[in-house]
């Protein structure tokens, strides 16, 4: 098992044992900022090497993928889960969007398995964050006039996550591989160490979400495991269609399978306030994140190997 995963396990364990261990909010923010910038930069460097036009099919495909996954999740949550409209819409948005932390773990995993992948994946990551948010808002409130779309767009595109990822992408793209070289000691060499600290904190947070889970029962657990498995299949199929490499397929499956816990919760809190954040975070963080990180990614790897082999 990759040692960064062990940090996640340490965090969960410490959290469940009610240890005094707690990372200050500022450390969480620092670590998040470095990760987001690092992922953006890495993708940007790659973009500098190839014509953007060539990536257009992939870009369109992941946007559609984001829409579709949210639209599929919604009726399941509504019918099978008997959740309220707003809650179902909000959770659907979480699962249609993506988790940067899960992406980073997948990158680390492929690294230690020495499987290479298309390095422009961070571009797809950014593109896939947004569509599900829009779906979620429309599902919750309809396309009513009263929705303040101005502030929705602001919330979505100017949130910390997107700004740093996109900013990193653009800087990496503008500076190119040579230009970014002096930044590598911080953003590349420390990447795994910083990711370890991030996962330690995520473990502590995940442990706290489990309380939410206990209250809202089995359905969320089932959904939190079944949905990523289903999404990973859709993601793998999409990757196949796009002709991605083995590594690229694993990443796209992981992106599809992952559920957002940075951009989407913030956007939903403002745009669909009547949705209960405890539900979506319990599912996305309490179930799906650990599932993907501990079990899912190797499964998606096996699946991709099988499909592409």
């Amino acid at each position, binding site marked *: 098992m990759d040692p960064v995963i062990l940090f996640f396990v340490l965090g969960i364990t410490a959290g469940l044992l009610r240890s005094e261990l*707690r*990372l200050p*909010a500022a450390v*969480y*923010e620092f670590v998040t900022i470095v990760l987001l910038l690092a992922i953006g930069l890495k993708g940007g460097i790659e973009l500098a090497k190839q014509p953007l036009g060539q990536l257009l099919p992939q870009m369109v495909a992941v946007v559609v993928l984001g829409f579709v996954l949210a639209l599929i999740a919604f009726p399941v949550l509504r019918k099978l889960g008997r959740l309220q409209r707003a809650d179902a819409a909000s959770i659907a948005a979480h699962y249609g969007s993506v988790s940067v932390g899960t992406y980073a773990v997948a990158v680390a995993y492929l690294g230690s398995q020495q499987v290479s992948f298309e390095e422009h994946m961070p571009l797809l990551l950014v593109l896939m964050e947004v569509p599900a948010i829009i779906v979620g808002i429309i599902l919750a409130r309809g396309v009513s006039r009263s929705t303040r779309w101005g502030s929705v767009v602001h919330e979505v595109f100017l949130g910390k996550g997107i700004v740093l990822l996109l900013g990193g992408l653009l800087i990496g793209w503008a500076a190119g591989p040579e230009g970014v070289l002096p930044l590598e000691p911080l953003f590349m060499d420390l990447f795994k160490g910083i990711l370890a600290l991030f996962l330690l*904190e995520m473990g*502590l*947070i995940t442990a*706290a979400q489990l*309380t*939410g889970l206990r209250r809202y029962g089995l359905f969320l657990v089932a959904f939190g495991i079944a949905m990523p498995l289903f999404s990973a299949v859709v993601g793998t199929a999409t990757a196949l269609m796009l002709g991605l490499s083995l590594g690229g397929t694993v990443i796209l499956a992981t992106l599809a399978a992952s559920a957002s*816990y940075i951009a989407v*919760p*913030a956007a939903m*809190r*403002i745009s669909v*306030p*009547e949705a209960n*954040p*405890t539900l979506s*975070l319990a599912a996305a963080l309490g179930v799906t994140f650990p599932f993907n990180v501990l079990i899912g990614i190797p499964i998606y790897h096996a699946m991709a190997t099988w499909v592409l082999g």
Partner: protein
Amino acid sequence: MNSYKRKLLTIVTEAALETTLIREIDRSGAHGYTVTDARGKGDHGVRDAGWPASANIRVEVVCDAETAQSLAAHLHDRYYQDYAMILFIAEVEVLRPTKF
């Protein structure tokens, strides 16, 4: 030195609401506000500030009684149902009546 009676409205709520709340305060006619980071527990469970989604803010507004009452009532009607939020109002004395 003379002193004048004003109200201190304190709001404890989710950090995610900061921008929205500040817009509401600006609109209410109050002349200012003070924000500190906080954590806590209430009907919506423990909010331990471990990460942005579980952080609270504590906002104070010194203003006249009327503004305090109407701002409190408005926030109550608009946000109490969907957000972790409490409101309380205390009596305070200030030195410069025109400032608040």
